[in-house]
């Protein structure tokens, strides 16, 4: 408790008009807590963090914390983050997005940021729904579930966020849940530390919208669902397809080294500047 109080004083904005807008029981606060703890563990100065978000419930996060914060337009957080990182490479740039933000309207920017492997950390809070606008289908809404815009059930298959990041060329890809809150801190910490494009997909719950439409119970029930459906990535290899049905893996899913856009560009810049008469 003492640690939390200390972190609250150090990292939350005191001149901001609290309370925040998240519903009681929302998982976004757990993600914010994990992010703050990760940054605290890394020993970063508040001045060197740029927190960039798009639009949606999760994207309100930057407003509450005492970093360089940017709340942009829907889906485009990574484009702003790209400009910030290239203009000031000393900044640690972290982009916060929801599943609709990152995968639907921002899907193109997501795969291209991964392809470039630019040194940005992307945290994608996946609650399988558009929460802020009232529970419409998102690109991660599971096949067969119900939403405000799929009253006869969702007939589209969902994107696999982390797997898409791996296929698109990100250096580091992990998946966590808000239930596994302590593990999440470590995943975010590693993601920020890792040079290149890092993605952490964070499975969270929206009991107010997704849970309500799909009779999944309270936020506690949905946290329990995360516990029972998450399989540590290192154990998944030894499990049968039958055992993995309807489950998802958590942990580090990819950690590799590819050329990093900002580092490669710096080489070009140095060579071009020296080539001048």
């Amino acid at each position, binding site marked *: 408790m003492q640690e939390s109080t200390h972190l609250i004083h150090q990292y939350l904005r005191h001149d901001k008009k609290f309370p925040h807008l998240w519903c009681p029981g929302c998982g976004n606060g757990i993600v914010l807590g994990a992010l703050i703890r990760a940054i605290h563990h890394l020993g970063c100065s508040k001045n060197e963090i*740029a927190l960039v978000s798009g639009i949606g419930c999760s994207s309100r996060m930057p407003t509450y914390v005492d970093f360089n914060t*940017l709340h942009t337009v829907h889906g485009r957080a990574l484009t*702003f983050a790209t*400009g910030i990182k290239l203009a000031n490479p000393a900044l640690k740039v972290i982009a916060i997005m929801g599943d609709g933000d990152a995968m639907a309207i921002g899907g193109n920017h997501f795969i*291209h940021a991964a392809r470039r492997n630019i040194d940005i950390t992307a945290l994608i809070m996946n609650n399988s729904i558009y929460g802020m606008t009232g529970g419409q289908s998102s690109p991660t809404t599971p096949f067969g579930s119900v939403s405000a815009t799929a009253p006869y059930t969702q007939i589209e298959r969902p994107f696999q966020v982390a797997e898409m990041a791996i296929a698109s060329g990100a250096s580091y890809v992990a998946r966590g849940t808000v239930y596994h809150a302590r593990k999440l801190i470590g995943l975010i910490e590693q993601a920020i530390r890792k040079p290149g494009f890092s993605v952490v997909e964070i499975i969270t719950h929206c009991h107010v919208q997704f849970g309500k439409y799909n009779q999944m119970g309270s936020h506690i029930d949905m946290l329990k669902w995360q516990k029972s459906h998450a399989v540590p990535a290192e154990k998944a290899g030894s499990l049968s397809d039958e055992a993995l049905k309807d489950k998802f893996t958590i942990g580090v899913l990819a950690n590799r080294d590819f050329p990093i856009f900002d580092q490669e560009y710096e080489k070009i*810049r140095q060579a071009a500047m020296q080539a001048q008469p």
Partner: protein
Amino acid sequence: MAKHRALKVIRPPALIHGNAAIARGAIAAGCRFFAGYPITPATEIAEIMSREMPRHGGTFIQMEDEIASMGAIVGASLAGVKAMTATSGPGFCLMQEILGFAYATETPCVVVNVMRGGPSTGLPTRPSQSDVMLSRWGAHGNHASIVLAVSSVEDCFHVTLKAFNFSEKFRTPVILLSDEVVAHTRAIFSPPEDDCLSVINRVRPSVPPEWYIPYENTARGVPPMAVFGDGYRHNVTGLVHDVRGFPTEQKEEVRTFYERIHRKIDLNREEIELFESFFLDDADICLIAYGSASMAALESVHLARKVNLKVGLLKLTTLFPFPSKPVEEVLNRSRIVIVPEMNFGQIVQEVKNLGVCQTRIIPMNRYDGHMFTPSEILQKIREVY
């Protein structure tokens, strides 16, 4: 922070096109970040910037689309680097939402739109002036805009510099309208020495961070701008915000926000409104033109003067805020005003809106993908004289 370096190079006169002059003007203005996406007839600007940016210690990035390009330049500007993108109609349409974000957050940047025929794919390799009102009103919501038009290679250099200066001084995006004819017409250009150029940089806060009010409601309306990484740690949002940068729906704060982003442009109209007068003193008929049409118009004035027709030209460089004062003077003084434009009549509506005197205002429109010729404007002058 990426290191910036001013190059001291010998610059002989060169035969360059308008797009190249825009790139040179941007570099002279201190632009050190360019994000873009290929599109005719603006592509050469990106190509030149891809070569020049790293040589000047800056950054070029080809983004995945024009939306991303616009996002990247706003991000770069928020991190303290002067930034520009260049596009044409279809790409400019895609940029409107983030352009609105730049108006709302008062982020300096320059957006070049090399106009081609539209709507849609339209006439990719043909000139047009049909994006004038789009440039003024493209982004949704209440905002004041600065829109400048270029007509020659010389203009492209100097007006681009002006565009950056306005954007930095007034903390606002500036739209630079070129067109396909200006973009690809070559002329001999002698670059001025850097020392002769007046370059304006945004005012940064001088108070300690804890005293800094990022969107302070000052009389001039332009608060100092902190950038990411300099220790001020402010919040930037496209939501209507209070003076501290936090979202608000309080009616007093909302009104204050809108009024200030209009006031900072309105109060400085005289400085922002750029125009040139040719033979207006005794003109009986006056042409009002901008962009490549103003070049044809000027030549037609020379031709008319040769045959003793009292014709003058008011060439507008600033289209918005609309330079109503010089236009009103012309309307008060002339018997007839002709407004040649490569569209169905956009600036002519602004002229008519002034609603002064009994002067005949005659629109002259081309929308066949070809530029005006001096002789056709002269013919029109003769018809109405």
